[in-house]
């Protein structure tokens, strides 16, 4: 049983929950940028939360099915269609053998997750099917999905209810302007107090250069650095440090001008200072930000970060409850 890719949409990749454990060798965890959306889509079609599905950005693929199966789309509002007939997002629906799943124009958000009953069963690399194209790992022979690909599907071991849906109150999407909560730290002391305040006061905009490696932001005031003689081996620019590890979610600001938040396909290290990191609870939302979206960074402490993490876990628990 396979699904045939007629057109690939934009940056469509196979993703599951990733391959942690190899970051010390420069291999990032990868996996769905919006993990909650992938998990939810999987639950809707009776899969394990970590089954492999498809992630598409702004424009969805066209997929032809070779057997009757159940599909669910979560994440961005990119309305699905079956043989041209509209279907709902966040809702399980049937696609029959020979039918084609396609998508209408994007209404909000950035990334959809397509879960198919049984899950995609391409070969695993280091315990995951997630696509990491730089390292030619996972995906379809290490690359994103292309027209002409045939994606193998697993056997579904659970009967699923057509029309099963996630209540609106539990569907997470980014607000506009979006808020990303940040725990200051890492090399926070490298910028002046004025710059520390400006960073949180200014409204930034998502730049066009955004991908699975990182999201870039523009429009805020340039950050000024505390003067110092640069340490041996750090490099001449005040934003340089001796090459070090980069946490997921860390915010680096090369030359102090455009912050970059590293995401699931992060480069594991490099020579730019970081002023802190986006808290784990807000990482999913980053994957749903469109270019030009206004964004405010909001300063929080560890207690607030952990409370937000708990709150997000509660939402996921409620989704599990509703779909069980």
């Amino acid at each position, binding site marked *: 049983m396979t699904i045939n890719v007629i057109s690939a949409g934009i940056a469509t990749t196979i993703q599951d929950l990733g391959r942690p454990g190899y970051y010390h060798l*420069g291999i990032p965890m990868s996996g769905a940028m919006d993990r909650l959306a992938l998990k939810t889509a999987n639950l809707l079609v009776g899969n394990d939360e970590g089954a492999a599905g498809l992630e598409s950005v702004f424009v969805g693929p066209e997929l032809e099915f070779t057997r009757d199966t159940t599909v669910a789309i979560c994440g961005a509002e990119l309305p699905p269609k079956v043989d041209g007939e509209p279907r709902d997002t966040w809702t399980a629906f049937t696609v029959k053998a020979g039918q084609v799943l396609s998508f209408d124009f994007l209404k909000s958000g950035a990334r959809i997750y397509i879960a198919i009953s049984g899950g995609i069963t391409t070969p695993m690399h280091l315990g995951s099917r997630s696509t990491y194209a730089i390292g030619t790992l996972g995906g379809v022979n290490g690359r994103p999905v292309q027209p002409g690909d045939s994606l193998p599907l697993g056997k579904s071991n659970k009967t699923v209810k057509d029309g099963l849906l996630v209540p609106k109150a539990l569907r997470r999407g980014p607000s506009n302007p979006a808020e990303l909560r940040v725990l200051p730290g890492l090399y926070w002391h490298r910028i002046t107090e004025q710059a520390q305040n400006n960073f949180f006061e200014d409204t930034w905009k998502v730049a066009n250069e955004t991908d699975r490696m990182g999201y870039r932001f523009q429009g805020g005031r340039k950050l000024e650095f505390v003067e110092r003689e640069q*340490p041996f081996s750090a490099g001449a620019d005040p934003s340089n440090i001796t090459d070090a590890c980069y946490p*997921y*979610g860390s915010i680096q600001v090369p030359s102090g001008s455009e912050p970059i938040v590293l995401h699931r396909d992060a*480069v594991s290290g490099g020579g730019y200072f970081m002023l802190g*990191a986006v808290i784990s609870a807000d990482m999913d939302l980053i994957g749903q930000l469109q270019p030009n979206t206004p964004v405010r960074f909001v300063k929080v402490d560890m207690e607030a970060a952990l409370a937000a993490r708990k709150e997000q876990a509660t939402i996921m628990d409620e989704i599990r409850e509703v779909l069980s």
Partner: protein
Amino acid sequence: MSSRYTFGGDEHIFVEVDEEMSLEAFFVSLSMTNAVRNANIKGVTEICPANASFQIKFDPDVIHPDDMMKELKRLEAQTEQGDNLLETRIVEVPVYYQDPWTYETLMRFRDRHQDPNATDIEYAASINGYDSVEKFIEAHSGAPWFVSMVGFVSGLPFLYQMVDRSRQIQVPKYLRPRTDTPRQTIGYGGTFTSIYSVRGAGGYQMLGITPMQIFDPEQRLSYLKDFMVFFKPGDIVKFKPVNREEYDAAIAQVRAGEFMPRIRNVRFSLSEFNADMDGTNAKLMEALYDH
């Protein structure tokens, strides 16, 4: 040297051993990350040593960040720096300096370079006071290097030369990063040599290229059978200049799945090295070449 501990969001602790690079700082990073691995702390998911710092990723649902912090500081207090002994391996990496492929690439990005009228290696030689590129290559391939970090992208090693600081080569990165770098390019940025494990963007100056594959998800070559990434922090590397003929022969061996770098196991002592750098390096060369 006193380590600085800081959180990277709610899932990471970042420890800066020193602001500046030194083999001492690297050894602290290596011994601390080994200690964390051996301690088997519940909730730890990634242990990443770097040049003069390291990073631990953990699951805050399993261990509270404050407890994780306490645990790391406790380990630091316990970890003996002692005489800094390391059981490791020394590897000979062939390098075709001034090869045609990095030359073709660097010519495409002259507008992003400090000195558009020189090649990367000419620039690196001149700003470090070498009379000629040949002299520069002698220095680069003369003394061995420590792999002090693996990362950025898949299996890319950062190497730090085992010479006194006064002899360290220092070269700034490109003014603006290139969008292309050939696979297995030997790069130089700051005080580090890198080997680009995969083709892609990069900001390090390009000195040459190695025929030796160092990352392969298909694990075709015998030295990549254990794992798809060859280098690990603590490895020692000796660069060996090769000419076009030797390069082509090595590439043919790689294609046939028969290439095997020269590798010997060695014991390295940082205290011995600090007492006599040239003497220690000479012993490493004896071990590598079975003299």
